[in-house]
């Protein structure tokens, strides 16, 4: 453990109440928790770790294992508390004094049902404290815990400083709700932290890779589209302009910023504004994927977007987005006329907008002329199969090549070192693992692809993606042929095809150009599949690499700046050719294979280039057959380990690499490297960063650091102004001013209804469905002094009395469950079992208290409007009572008011209501723990599956994967009917008619 970590822990333990620790992202939170666990002794009681996601759990366990290197010492790792444990065993676990991971929902239910003796808890550790609020379940837990055993310390942690400042005095409110007084702020720029981390900094090499011009074009276009969206959004005058910058737009939290501002008026917003917000999200993804995905996958994603977003989106029709699609396509292929003239894309058929393609003038002169029927630039009546040739480009990601060179260089350097060191004693840290070069990228997908790139050639990878892409098209095409009726044209073709379909409802022939393109794609696809079968790569690639050489051979430079002790040897500049075919030819001056004619900036004779390519190609084919990466380029590569940042595993301490290549820069990972280095000061760690020059990637990285610093500064300011009330014993008093709120309401109720039926000391009771503990209403009800009884309810969410049953809907829930029809079903059953079924419509305090503004109501009675749906519901269930609540606190008051003069609800009765008898005894437990609810919901939405037969289906097979394989006869048996079974089976096996 580093000195600053020890300092954090000792500071935290200073206050017996506990405290809130905010550390910079990437600083070792798990090992802080682990050291708390080490200090914990079972005799003091159990230590509960609240709301840790799986990745954090494993990180904490790993940190714990590391902290105790001696294998002989008994190490008790914290275990999960399973949700389906019988109650007596739960109590035993809680009192065992062990460390446990618990979810808030389970813990609160156990606390309320007194399955946890509060005295048995030594301390509570709340992770991800930035998610808390006064009404969250964690606060509920803290309150119950503190009221029963006031001295239990509560420690809260978070490593998301920027979410701690999102909202008014958020940190202070969180601390109050957890009853803690101390805020510990540990930014990266804290003196102790920076001292520790900068004592022996790793050697850093910053490599800026230029993007290809098409990528740049796309980036500019996406940013342009974002800017346009933002401008539109500003025009609505509904958002604070200050936060609306493109820089902010790069972050996920941008949606939060916008949503937080718009939420109070969300239901009053027009469609356009809502669409703008979601468009911004899509655009941010596009920007992100641009540097993460290869050209073909990117195009595929765009294709998908075009189908799914269809005509709804605004940005798809913006001019700049036209460029996005056009350029993305250009990175993969081009359609050219057989006579070498590029087909002009005709926009006359577009009803909305005319677009000129500037490519028309650009002639592709070097294309071999095909013998074909004449193609006019107009290109209307030409047989597409003959008239159009698909020109593959398959631009590989520039980083791939740089990565490969880097790896080669690392290996070379290493060889030199070992040669130099030969004869000397072997240095101590030449373990097997340290040989590994760690490449960190964003996601698993990139990992797999890079692995392919390294083991084979980038071109190979691109080809494969391309083939997959084409084959997908072929399949869909043939599918459309055979059942034209079923496959519906996606409404908008969008701009990829350079035109917008008229949106005609009849099954229109694809427009001319798109037909050309389609046919060309299909032709290429079949050619590809044939050529792969024949195992004949040379011929195919000869011609297109020649073409490519001509089009794309622009010299690119990779400049590298060695920061700190630059050891980057040899020439600092490489000529990097865009065309990956020639990569080893032109990239390194030392390359043995480099032929003199290709080392120049790429302006070379076509013929020689062609020859060259053939050679290399042949070379590649051979090497792939012999399956040896080392032979591939005549250069050996070091062992490489790929690591996905998304997987959230802490891999550095396991692999102990000496060389790390950060393929996708990420602030958190950089911090982790720093900590890793500081913990292993004797290792010679070298870190390479791969940035795309002038890209959004760099901007995002830099902005993330700036943002965190700002958050910390704001937190420090807030800390100096905090006011947290303290009682005589120095304990913190939470947001409730009275420590025993129930007495107040009891007094009130007594005076209000003189001689009321409630005897003194008996609290109001509310039976609450377990699933409702996700919401904050149970918390607030308890705060009001009601006795909350958690059970699993089949019907309704809350039972207030033997007569009153309440189904609670937040606004978004209401809209959703109206749309899905679930609400109808719920009201139906509630009406069946209770005399006073209540639908509670609960608005949120920070959102508007209305469905829509008067202007949005429209002139006619429209069936989709919420008014219509509610009216219909009311007409069909005249007994249903509606309750409209401004916020969760108002709901609690309404509940209390409704409960007056009513009997208390009967717990055991409420549980049995509506439970089908064949289910037998329902255990007193959370349903989600017993059932795969997501699978059941999915099952019930399949065609043919009804309320009547889904249980039988669940009994008939283990899971959905198994269901998918059942034969129709068996399904008919389970579903009790041939027809339903056939409907289901057909749906399961139907081909997806999605893409063009």
């Amino acid at each position, binding site marked *: 453990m580093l000195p600053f970590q020890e300092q954090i822990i000792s500071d935290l333990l200073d206050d017996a109440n506990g405290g809130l620790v905010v550390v910079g992202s990437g600083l070792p939170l798990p090992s802080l928790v682990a050291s708390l666990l080490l200090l914990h002794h079972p005799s003091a009681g159990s230590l509960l770790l609240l709301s840790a996601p799986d990745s954090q759990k494993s990180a904490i366990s790993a940190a714990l294992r590391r902290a105790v290197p001696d294998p002989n010492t008994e190490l008790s790792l914290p275990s999960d508390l399973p949700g389906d444990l019988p109650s007596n065993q739960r109590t035993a676990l809680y009192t065992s004094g062990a460390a446990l991971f618990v979810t808030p929902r389970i813990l609160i239910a156990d606390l309320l049902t007194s399955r946890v003796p509060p005295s048995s808890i030594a301390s509570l550790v709340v992770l991800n404290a930035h998610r808390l609020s006064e009404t969250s379940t964690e606060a509920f837990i803290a309150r119950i815990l503190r009221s029963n055993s006031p001295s239990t310390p509560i420690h809260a942690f978070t490593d998301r400083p920027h979410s701690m400042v999102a909202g008014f005095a958020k940190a202070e409110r969180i601390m109050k709700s957890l009853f803690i007084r101390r805020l510990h702020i540990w930014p990266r720029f804290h003196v102790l932290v920076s001292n520790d981390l900068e004592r022996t900094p790793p050697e850093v090499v910053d490599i800026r890779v230029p993007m290809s011009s098409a990528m740049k074009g796309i980036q500019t276009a996406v940013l342009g589209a974002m800017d346009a969206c933002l401008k539109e959004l500003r025009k609505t005058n509904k958002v604070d302009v200050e936060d609306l910058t493109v820089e902010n737009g790069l972050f996920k939290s941008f949606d939060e910023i916008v949503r937080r501002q718009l939420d109070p008026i969300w239901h009053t917003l027009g469609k356009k504004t809502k669409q703008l917000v979601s468009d911004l999200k899509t655009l941010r993804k596009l920007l992100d994927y641009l540097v993460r995905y290869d050209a073909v996958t*990117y195009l595929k994603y765009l294709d998908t977007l075009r189908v799914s977003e269809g005509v709804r989106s605004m940005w798809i029709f913006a001019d700049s987005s036209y460029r996005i699609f056009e350029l993305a396509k250009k990175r993969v292929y081009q359609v050219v006329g057989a006579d070498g003239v590029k087909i002009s894309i005709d926009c006359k058929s577009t009803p909305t907008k005319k677009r000129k393609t500037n490519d028309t003038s650009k002639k592709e002169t070097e294309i071999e002329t095909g013998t074909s029927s004449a193609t006019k630039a107009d290109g209307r009546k030409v047989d597409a199969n003959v008239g159009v040739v698909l020109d593959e480009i398959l631009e590989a990601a520039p980083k791939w090549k740089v990565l490969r060179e880097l790896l080669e260089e690392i290996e070379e350097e290493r060889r030199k070192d070992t040669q130099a060191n030969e004869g000397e004693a072997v240095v101590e840290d030449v373990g097997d693992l340290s040989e590994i070069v760690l490449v960190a990228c964003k996601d698993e997908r990139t990992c797999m692809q890079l692995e392919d790139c390294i083991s084979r050639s980038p071109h190979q990878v691109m080809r494969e993606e391309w083939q997959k892409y084409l084959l997908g098209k072929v399949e869909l095409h043939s599918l459309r042929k055979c059942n034209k009726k079923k496959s519906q044209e996606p409404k908008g073709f969008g701009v990829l095809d350079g035109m917008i379909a008229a949106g005609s409802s009849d099954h229109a022939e694809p427009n001319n150009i798109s037909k050309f393109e389609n046919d060309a794609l299909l032709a290429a696809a079949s050619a590809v599949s044939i050529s792969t079968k024949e195992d004949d790569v040379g011929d195919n690639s000869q011609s297109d690499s020649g073409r490519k050489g001509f089009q794309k051979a622009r010299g690119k430079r990779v400049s590298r700046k060695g920061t700190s002790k630059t050891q980057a040897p040899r020439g600092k500049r490489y000529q990097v050719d865009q065309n990956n075919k020639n990569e080893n030819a032109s990239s390194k001056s030392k390359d043995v294979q480099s032929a003199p004619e290709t080392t120049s900036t790429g302006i070379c004779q076509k013929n020689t280039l062609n020859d060259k390519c053939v050679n290399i190609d042949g070379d590649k084919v051979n090497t792939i057959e012999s399956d040896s990466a080392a032979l591939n380029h005549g250069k050996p590569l070091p062992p490489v380990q790929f690591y996905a940042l998304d997987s959230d595993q802490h891999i550095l301490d396991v692999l102990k690499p000496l060389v790390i290549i950060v393929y996708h820069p990420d602030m958190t990972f950089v911090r982790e490297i720093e900590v890793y280095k500081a913990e292993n000061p004797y290792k010679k760690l070298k870190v390479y960063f791969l940035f795309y020059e002038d890209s959004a990637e760099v901007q995002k990285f830099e902005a993330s650091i700036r943002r965190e610093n700002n958050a910390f500064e704001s937190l420090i300011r807030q800390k100096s102004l905090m006011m947290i009330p303290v009682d005589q014993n120095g304990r913190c008093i939470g947001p409730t001013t009275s420590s025993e709120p129930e007495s107040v309401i009891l007094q009130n109720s007594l005076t209000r209804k003189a001689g009321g039926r409630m005897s003194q000391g008996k609290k109001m009771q509310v039976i609450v469905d377990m699933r409702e503990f996700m919401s904050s209403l149970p918390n607030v009800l308890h705060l009001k002094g009601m006795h909350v009884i958690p059970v699993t309810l089949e019907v309704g969410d809350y039972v207030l009395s033997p007569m009153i049953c309440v189904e609670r809907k937040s606004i978004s829930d209401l809209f959703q469950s109206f749309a899905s029809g679930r609400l109808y079903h719920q009201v139906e059953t509630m009406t069946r079992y209770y005399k006073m079924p209540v639908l509670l419509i609960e608005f949120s305090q920070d959102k508007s208290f209305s469905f829509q503004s008067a202007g949005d*109501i429209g002139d006619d009675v429209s069936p989709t409007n919420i*008014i219509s749906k509610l*009216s*219909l519901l009311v007409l069909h269930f005249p007994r249903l009572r509606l309750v*409209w609540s401004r916020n969760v606190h108002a709901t609690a008051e309404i509940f209390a008011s409704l409960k007056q003069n009513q009997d208390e609800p009967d717990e055991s009765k409420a549980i049995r209501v509506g439970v089908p008898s064949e289910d037998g005894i329902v255990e007193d437990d959370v349903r989600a723990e017993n059932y795969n609810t997501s699978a059941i919901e999915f099952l019930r939405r399949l065609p043919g599956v009804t309320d009547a037969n889904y249980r039988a289906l669940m009994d008939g097979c283990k899971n959905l994967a198994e269901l998918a394989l059942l034969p129709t006869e068996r399904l008919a048996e389970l579903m009790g009917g041939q027809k339903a079974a056939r409907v289901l089976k057909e749906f*399961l096996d139907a081909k997806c008619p999605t893409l063009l």
Partner: protein
Amino acid sequence: SASASVQNRNAILVSHRQKGNPLLNHIRNVRWMFADVVCDYLLGQTSCALYISLRYHLLHPDYLYYRIRELQKNFKLRVVLCHVDVEDVVKPLLEVTRTAMLHDCTLLCGWSFEECGRYLETLKVYENKPSDNIREQTHTDYLSRLNHALTSIRHVNKTDVVTLGSTFGSLSGIMDASMEDLARCPGIGERKVKRLYDTFHEPFRRVS
């Protein structure tokens, strides 16, 4: 006469008490006429509505109760149409809610005269409408059915549905896909992969 009674049946009958209520300007999709009725708005044979604005309620807290009592037991559906026209709603709304609930009335809230008028119109227009519109819908085309099923899994959006569909070819293909295959789809991150995989492969019942 007979035609008059038909007309009466197709129109909302409005009590003379409501004369001058701006709400009447917004009943445009249905005919309405003044008549001697005990409720404020007679919407059908067995349904009626009372109108109350929160501002009025604050001045006359007992008004609603007496109006409801007048209705007696003559109606199946008794709507209290509450116009929310004050800023501080919590207390008056609580009282109105309580009164309506305890006296077997259904409370509907509108925030403008337009909205209140629309409720009355809709209740009249939909008088005999079946409940299909709010029951589970049966989409007929494949893609929306697929969307309907797959988007029930958390975090899965429509774009993902298209991606999954085109990658695996059919729903059974998706359901049978390995984690790795799922991860290869563009736009499907770790979280979604796990969600999808668990949904398809975890048993329906976790405890036997």
